[in-house]
């Protein structure tokens, strides 16, 4: 029935050329008009630069005439293998990520759990906790430089007043990175808390009630209900946290400039220095691609682990 009536139209359709099919009335041509501005933008400012940067990474271009950029093959990548500064920067980025992501997630989860207890005034607290999130990195950085000042900063004043020794926060290579991490956690707490809170509020109340009837205490409920049901949220925070941490730039640029003695020189900062202060654009592009590959692989591994555990993927 339906198939016999459709038969003639189908043969007519198949006789149309590919172009006619593409430009037929079932294809709403307006669609192309509507995406034209964004498509032009994404091609010009994303796809072309992407290809261009891959090309640059195989050249030894140093900011002169682009038409005679010397092709060096894999030389940049080979040189990178033995570049101690680059690996130091990658190590610093990994260190920063390992410190800031788990700590930030744990602290913000703690705050979110308290915020979820339906206390009065949570709106007020949320507004406050969110102020650092929306603040600019440079403003936050200059504030914290003075707070962490070894002689007259507030933090050392607090430490010494409770009898602890004062710390040369940003001046000592061993504490400089933890200091940046403290600032980053302080700045990101509100954001992570909002995401946790949204996850917590999606946990059905019935589960807690059922557990209470079975005689579970608060900690057991938290461990066996809250934590497993928060898995998608923690996955999201983990992935975005790792990706974001490998891209950290502003606080390092403003607060330490990579110092002291290269202790806070993270990957993006290194690429920036190579490209825009050393004008070593080819080599810096190669570094950017290695950084990108690492971020990409980390993300894929996380997706893979999640898929294997049978959890639904997020994107």
């Amino acid at each position: 029935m339906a198939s016999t009536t459709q038969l003639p139209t189908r043969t007519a359709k198949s006789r149309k050329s590919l172009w006619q099919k593409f430009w037929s009335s079932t294809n709403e041509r307006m669609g192309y008009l509507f995406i034209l501005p964004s498509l032009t933008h994404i091609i010009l400012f994303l796809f072309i630069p992407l290809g261009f940067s891959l090309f640059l990474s195989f050249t030894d271009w140093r900011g002169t005439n682009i038409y005679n950029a010397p092709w060096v093959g894999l030389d940049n990548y080979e040189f990178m293998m033995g570049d101690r500064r680059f690996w130091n920067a990658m190590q610093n980025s990994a260190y920063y990520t390992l410190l800031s992501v788990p700590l930030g997630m744990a602290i913000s989860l703690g705050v979110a759990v308290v915020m979820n207890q339906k206390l009065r005034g949570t709106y007020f607290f949320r507004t406050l906790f969110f102020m650092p999130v929306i603040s600019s990195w440079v403003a936050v950085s200059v504030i914290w430089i003075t707070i962490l000042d070894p002689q007259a900063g507030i933090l050392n004043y607090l430490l010494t007043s409770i009898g602890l020794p004062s710390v040369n926060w940003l001046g000592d290579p061993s504490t400089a990175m933890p200091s940046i991490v403290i600032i980053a956690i302080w700045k990101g707490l509100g954001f992570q808390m909002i995401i946790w809170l949204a996850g917590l509020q999606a946990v059905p109340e019935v589960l807690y009630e059922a557990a209470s009837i079975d005689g579970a205490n608060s900690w057991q409920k938290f461990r066996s209900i809250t934590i497993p049901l928060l898995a998608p949220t923690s996955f999201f925070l983990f992935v975005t946290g790792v990706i974001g941490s490998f891209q950290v730039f502003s606080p390092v640029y403003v607060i330490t400039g990579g110092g002291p003695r290269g202790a806070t020189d993270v990957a993006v900062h290194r690429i920036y220095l190579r490209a825009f202060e050393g004008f070593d654009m080819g080599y810096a592009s190669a570094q950017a691609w290695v950084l990108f590959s690492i971020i990409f692989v980390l993300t894929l591994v996380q997706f893979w682990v999640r898929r294997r555990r049978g959890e639904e993927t997020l994107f």
Partner: protein
Amino acid sequence: MIYEKKPWDLPLKILGYSILCLVALAMIVPFIWMVSTSLKPSGAEFAYPPQILPTSFNLENYKNLFTLVPFGRYFLNTIIVTFFTVFGQIIICSMAAYAFARLKFIGRDVLFVLYLATMMIPFQIILIPLFLIVFGLGWVNTYQGLIIPGISSVFGIFLLRQAFMSVPGDYQDAARIDGASEFVIYWRIFLPLNGPALATLGVFSFMGTWTDLLWPLLIARDQDMRTLELGLAYFNSSLSAFQQTNWPLVMAAAVVLMLPVLLVYIFAQRYFIEGISLSGVK
């Protein structure tokens, strides 16, 4: 279910409030410190013990900010760049979002997946060639160089597409029967119906542009083209080159930079939180 009052309810409540207050204190003290330092005379910022609450109230630093440094110019630049970026993002992203959500055309879904995939690409990887392209166009030290690369975002398209998908299809059909063109449907039906989503995008792109550092750092080579964020960053580093940073002046600059962002945040908080929950949990 009947709620029983338990004996440890009150202590738990007190514990909860003390945690919140402690965190709130840690969050707010740096800001109070910023404001109070900006009101101190130069040289008094490192008095010992540190004075967190303002001890003096002189606006000298704010006056110096606009007379000694071209901070007024930075402010104007930031307003121009932010305004056009936000405006452009709202128009371009909403147009693309309408096409992706509500129009059928060949290659739409493939294109959308391609768009989404670009969200994985870190900005740093295209930084160098993007700079070269902008340089080739002769846009270094110009407003278009600061504005146009940021005038559309995949995140914005994604956000608005989600909102546009939830508009009932009947509206579109009814308008088509009445003979409305696609543009009229987009402009007169979809944009007005999605005010909150557009506001969310507006607030996000305002915050992002106002506080961006890396891109202006590359494009604004002249002092006259600097934005506030960049001005403050240079301010800090150029002054510390003389080993003598004038902290009250720097803090005054930080206050001027932060004030518009905080105001927008306080008035548009709802859109901001909604946007974050939407992008994070969807």
